[in-house]
């Protein structure tokens, strides 16, 4: 301690001042252990009023801390440096002190430091590091359990974190036997180069601070989906997260589903058509052989069942194709009034059989053309009007067309049994029959897909469909809209 030599050359008053202002507790004993010098801090720490003249080895604090052996050694010339705690194990708060013994020619210099705060800081830091390590393990475990390739890069191209999946997805491990050559994004960019410019994509994500989602990239004999997101720290983008998902299997499944539906529908429809056609011909050309009413009834039932089954198959195929977005809507312009007339003509007989009126209220003024797929619009109209007739026993069905919010709105009002408030929000759902429980279902209601299909079709053409109003035993009004032709 060079400072000590300077200290000892100081005049006595200064010496005292320096001693009293040290952040340490200091005492000096002679070779027998008698204290010749001690500062206030030392008195305080040892709980003494007076220290000079007393023997170090006799101090109760020294005895309590089991420091006698060290001090003995110290007086004999051996330096020591120990950490002690005066607290009982049962005490919650623990204080720590460092006792340093420095042998000097005249005896022993004893320095005591309160290291409680230090120790606490070190402990806190250790806890914190442990927590971070746990966090990181958890994070790594999570990203490694992802099926998708996960990479985080910083703004300088360096890969900060990557998971195992990225290597297998991109087939990187086999290339050179090493995984990700330089630890930067270049190797991945190179790998994807033929199919996709990854570099521009992540640069764009960083620059614009926006996510980038590329739904399909063909890569060798697979298909990938790529997702990039900038990592924001306040307003700054400090890196990019890149996710690569192998969607090959999903695509294969999709195609298989498609194929299954076409084949299934074809295979189902052929025999159904044969049943329908043959029973119709029996009714028509062999009526004389069908004089027995029972027999006639059975043939009629077979014929009608075949039609129901055909409708079912058609509905299922429609739903499947609509849900997969595989239906292409033709862009046509047509007059809604004439289309409604077509439908009312086709359903006139059905309405007449129940003594119901079926009419189109002529529009007040000329209406613009609709911009939609005419056949599909006819399908929606047919479904709504057919339903209206089905659920009405007296009165009839009225159709009105008007302009609402720059769209053409077709309103179908019936005087039928109406729909209970509690059932109304079930109407356009898949398989929902807005009726009571499934055991009391009215068997003429069909598959429960009609309104669902109408909804998908309407929305697919840019329109909306809803139940405008309904009252039990008074009737209902359904409305669907179509966009207006631009001309």
């Amino acid at each position, binding site marked *: 301690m060079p400072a000590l030599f300077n200290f000892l050359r100081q005049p006595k008053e200064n010496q005292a001042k320096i001693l009293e202002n040290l952040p340490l507790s200091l005492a000096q004993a002679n070779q027998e252990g008698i204290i010749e010098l001690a500062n206030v801090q030392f008195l305080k720490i040892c709980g003494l009023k007076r220290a000079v003249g007393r023997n170090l080895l006799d101090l109760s604090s020294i005895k309590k801390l089991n420091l006698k052996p060290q001090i003995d050694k110290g007086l004999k010339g051996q330096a020591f440096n120990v950490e002690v705690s005066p607290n009982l194990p049962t005490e919650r708060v623990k204080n720590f002190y460092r006792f340093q013994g420095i042998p000097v020619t005249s005896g022993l210099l004893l320095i005591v430091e309160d290291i409680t705060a230090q120790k606490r800081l070190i402990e806190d830091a250790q806890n914190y590091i442990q927590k971070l390590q746990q966090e990181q393990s958890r994070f790594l475990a999570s990203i490694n359990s992802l099926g998708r390739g996960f990479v985080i890069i910083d703004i300088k191209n360096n890969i900060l974190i990557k998971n195992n999946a990225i290597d297998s997805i991109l087939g990187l491990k086999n290339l050179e036997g090493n995984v990700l050559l330089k630890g930067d994004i270049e190797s991945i960019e190179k790998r994807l180069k033929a199919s996709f410019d990854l570099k521009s994509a992540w640069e764009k994500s960083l620059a614009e601070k926006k996510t980038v989602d590329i739904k399909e990239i063909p890569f060798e004999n697979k298909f990938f989906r790529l997702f990039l997101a900038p990592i924001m720290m306040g307003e700054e983008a400090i890196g990019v997260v890149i996710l690569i998902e192998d969607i090959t299997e999903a695509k294969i499944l999709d195609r298989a589903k498609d194929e299954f539906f076409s084949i299934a529908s*074809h295979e189902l*429809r*052929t*025999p159904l*058509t044969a049943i*329908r056609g*043959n029973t*119709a*011909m029996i009714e028509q050309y062999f009526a004389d052989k069908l004089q027995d009413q029972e027999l006639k009834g059975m043939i009629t039932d077979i014929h009608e069942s075949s039609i129901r089954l055909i409708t079912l*198959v058609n509905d299922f195929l429609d739903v499947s194709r609509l849900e997969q977005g595989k239906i292409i809507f033709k862009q046509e312009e047509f007059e809604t009034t004439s289309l409604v007339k077509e439908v009312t003509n086709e359903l006139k007989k059905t309405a007449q059989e129940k003594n119901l009126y079926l009419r189109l209220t002529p529009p007040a003024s000329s209406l613009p053309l609709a911009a939609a797929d005419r056949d599909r619009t006819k399908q929606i109209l047919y479904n709504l009007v057919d339903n209206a007739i089905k659920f009405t026993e007296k009165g009839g069905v009225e159709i009105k067309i008007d302009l609402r919010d720059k769209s053409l709105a077709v309103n179908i009002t019936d005087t039928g049994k109406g729909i209970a408030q509690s059932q109304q929000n079930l109407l356009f759902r898949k398989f929902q029959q807005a009726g009571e429980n499934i055991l009391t279902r009215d068997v003429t209601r069909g598959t429960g897909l009609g309104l669902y299909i109408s909804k998908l079709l309407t929305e697919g053409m840019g329109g909306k469909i809803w139940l405008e109003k309904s009252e039990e035993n008074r009737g209902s009004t359904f409305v669907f809209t179509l966009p207006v032709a631009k001309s």
Partner: protein
Amino acid sequence: MAKILIIEDDPLMLRMYQKIFTFEGYEVDLAADGQEGLEKVRTGKPTLILLDIMMPKMNGLQVLEKLKADPEMKKIPVVILTNLAGQQDAEKALMMGAIKYIVKSEYEPKQVADVVKQIMAGYTRGEIPKA
């Protein structure tokens, strides 16, 4: 007497359409595939052809192409038979010169016969009804 040639690979459907046209008083000729169909057009010279779209070996569109490429055969009206899934092909057939397409499962046999009757009447009057 008018002669209808039905080119259809499914025996169920073939029998059904044969029946309706026989009942309606037409002479009916049958072919189970495209190749046989083309031969029977050349030799039999039908008044109207009912052509199925989905057939193995040579599908309906290929048969139609050959029909319309021949100066004699192209004059015979062709009605396409299809199921719902084949609608896009059927639209294509219309552009290739077929008169109309019929979705098999949506028509009763009598309705098919009526359509054919209409077309033939139109042809004899020199009018071709709209598809």
